């Protein structure tokens, strides 16, 4: 296999980078993170209309661009570095992957075109109050009445849950967990905005009281669909983490070169220098992990379950560690709200905990290895 990017992929990266420099500078991140909705609708539309970002991995027959997971990685690496505020991860990494992983052609044809066009914000609701990412102890139930389903229960930690037009929900039926589609404005659905540690990523708690829902795919395939969806979502998340980790490494090095104490730049002291060298190792290893995970997803390689979890565990630890060291290297100023270092730490820590923490994922690695 090859680690490498084509000229077109490099150009895509330059485009996204320029776009985010303009539309998601720190000032915009701070402005949007202070709002309830956490995104700029005109930027969201521009992302769809000018760059086709929401459509990237959607097949052309649903109005998508038909790109693969390597192109997707490039986008997420850049959005992660820029701390882009908005429902991009929820819509593309979670909901779109769930629809694409299911065998339900009708569901895909019904919902993907609007997502591709940037007209529909979507998300996926799995976790409940216990915060688990597997399907073993779900309490939210889906009840069938004739041909129709209704959902009763609750979901927590739902990314962009208050603004989503489409919410994909995992609920328990008599035959096991099923995947359902619920309209954001559905009757019986109460959406409560949660105050988040990482204010750049909004979350909601959802309460369902006999909310009308549409079953997606066969109930028996739901476990596999969700497993695969989470693997692909991890592939996207690790790309964000790599982008963020590189950004804080750059910030640390820049500061270490310029901050003078005791008559010389603090980067000339080995304690600081060695922290930066260790961060470099983590960033580069995380990159290899993320790039390889994207390749594995793109080739639909049998190792996807192993590699997705290996990467999620490693990249989470790497980003969290680098973001922490970045604060340390900045000293007092790194501790202030005014300085961006804390924004990256909070994004790192939240990303570490979302979709399963490193221990959870290393356990998956252990199982995959047959230990």
């Amino acid at each position, binding site marked *: *296999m*090859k*680690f*490498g990017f084509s000229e077109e992929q490099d150009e895509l990266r330059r485009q996204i980078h320029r776009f985010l420099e303009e539309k998601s500078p720190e000032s915009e991140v701070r402005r949007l993170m202070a709002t309830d909705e956490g995104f700029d609708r005109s930027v969201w539309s521009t992302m769809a209309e000018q760059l086709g970002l929401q459509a990237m991995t959607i097949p052309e027959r649903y109005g998508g661009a038909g790109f693969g997971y390597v192109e997707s990685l490039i986008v997420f690496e850049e959005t992660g570095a820029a701390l882009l505020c908005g429902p991009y991860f929820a819509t593309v990494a979670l909901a779109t992957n769930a629809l694409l992983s299911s065998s339900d052609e009708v569901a895909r044809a019904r919902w993907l075109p609007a997502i591709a066009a940037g007209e529909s914000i979507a998300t996926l609701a799995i976790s409940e109050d216990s915060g688990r990412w597997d399907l073993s102890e779900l309490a939210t139930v889906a009840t069938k009445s004739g041909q129709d389903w209704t959902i009763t229960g609750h979901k927590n930690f739902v990314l962009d849950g208050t603004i989503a037009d489409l919410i994909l929900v995992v609920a328990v039926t008599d035959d096991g967990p099923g995947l359902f589609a619920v309209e954001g404005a559905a009757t019986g659905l109460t959406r409560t905005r949660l105050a988040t540690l990482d204010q750049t990523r909004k979350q909601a708690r959802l309460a369902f009281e006999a909310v009308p829902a549409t079953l997606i795919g066969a109930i028996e395939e739901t476990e596999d669909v969700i497993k695969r969806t989470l693997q692909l979502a991890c592939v996207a998340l690790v790309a964000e983490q790599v982008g963020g980790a590189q950004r804080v490494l750059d910030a640390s*090095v820049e500061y*270490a*070169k310029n901050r003078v104490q005791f008559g*010389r*730049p603090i*980067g*000339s*002291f*080995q304690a*600081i*220098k*060695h922290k*930066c*060298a*260790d961060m*470099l*190792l983590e960033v*580069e*290893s995380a*990159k*290899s*992990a993320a*790039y*390889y995970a994207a390749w594995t997803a793109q080739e639909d390689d049998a190792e996807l379950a192993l590699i997705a979890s*290996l990467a999620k*565990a*490693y990249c989470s630890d790497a980003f969290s560690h680098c973001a922490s060291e970045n604060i340390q290297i900045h000293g007092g100023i790194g501790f202030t709200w005014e300085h961006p270092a804390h924004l990256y730490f909070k994004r790192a820590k939240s990303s570490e905990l979302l979709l399963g923490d490193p*221990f959870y994922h*290393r*356990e998956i*690695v*252990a199982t995959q*290895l*047959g*230990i």
Partner: protein
Amino acid sequence: MTYLDELREWLEDSWDPELTLRTWWAKLADDGWSQPHWPNEWGGRGLSLSDATVVARTIREFGAVAGPPSIATRLAGPTLLIHGTDDQKARHLRGIADGTDAYCQLFSEPNAGSDLAGLQCKAEPDGDDWVVNGQKVWTSHGQIASRGLLLARTNLDVPKHAGISYFILRMDQPGVEFRPLREMTGRSFFNEVFLTNARVSSADLVGGVDNGWTVANTTLGVERAISGGAELSSTVVAGEVTGNLDRAVGTFVSGVTSSAPAKESSSKRLMRVVRRNGRSDEPLIRDGLAALYSLERLIALNTQRDRDFQSSGREFPGQPNLAKIAENQAVRLARDLTFTILGVAATVHRYEEDDVSEGSVFDQPDTDGLIETSLFSFAPQIMGGTDQIQRNILGERILGLPREPSTDKGVSFRELTKNS
């Protein structure tokens, strides 16, 4: 016809397991298959380093024995090719290529480890020779070497880097004395070497008087660049001392027909032990093994990414230094996991074959080997440039962070050592 076709034809014609190793290696050297990446005029075929790896692998897959390994071919050869005079190349390169000479490295001293340029071993001129006095340490293969790559101080009145010369020292002389150095593993892989009025000809001074630091950097550079000497060669120890040269070459065939047998990874080895110990269900052990496997996998992916990037014109700056640090992390993690997994059984360990101990510990054939590996684990992060030096290199050369102010720059060596 490609070089591989030529090689296979040559192997068909030339291979005979009844030949002595001496004769076989001479044949390889005669026809340029011992060091195929060397220039044609010096006994090679001008191939690339990666092609040379393919040659060695092809020879092994054929069921024959590849060229001689280790310090001579990996370090001495490339150093001489770059810095040696034609006379030195003519006198030394053949012995390297045909395995009749074995080399050791005489660089480090008790007072010159990370600060190698601070070395104190002296070489003083005496007619056409130099007389060498001093002490070297951490010399591996000292016992079998016929020649040593020696760094000695030839000028005390210039700053330390500027007063060093590089010699090819003949080891078989009265002024060269070895003392095995016992390591914490209980083994003596390394030696101290005492040089007392040892003599070396000025014809064996490489790269010019007082220019040894530049030559040494070449040696240290190729040491880092070529990872895993076994890839390029056989694993048979060269030189006269071992007596290998007069044995039939067929006795050295490894019996492995694919490329150099990949060493079993630490994680794989530990997984077997865990299963045998019935501790596969313990969460911390599972987590540790998954973390170790992940690290091993990432090290391989980084290497592959470096290769792929380079071949497509991209850069992965600092990868060799990053790789060393990462590998040492894996080694430490494996060590810690080993002791956790073995538990109190690890408090029983034989340093000598005949240490008698009762108990079921010795029903587990892996235990002693694992513990010795764990004890050796302190070495990789110290040798070949400590992890701290690697981080300095990464910080300064790759990230561009400023160097620390130095107190010995521009000061003559005589001044430096006046008060010490």
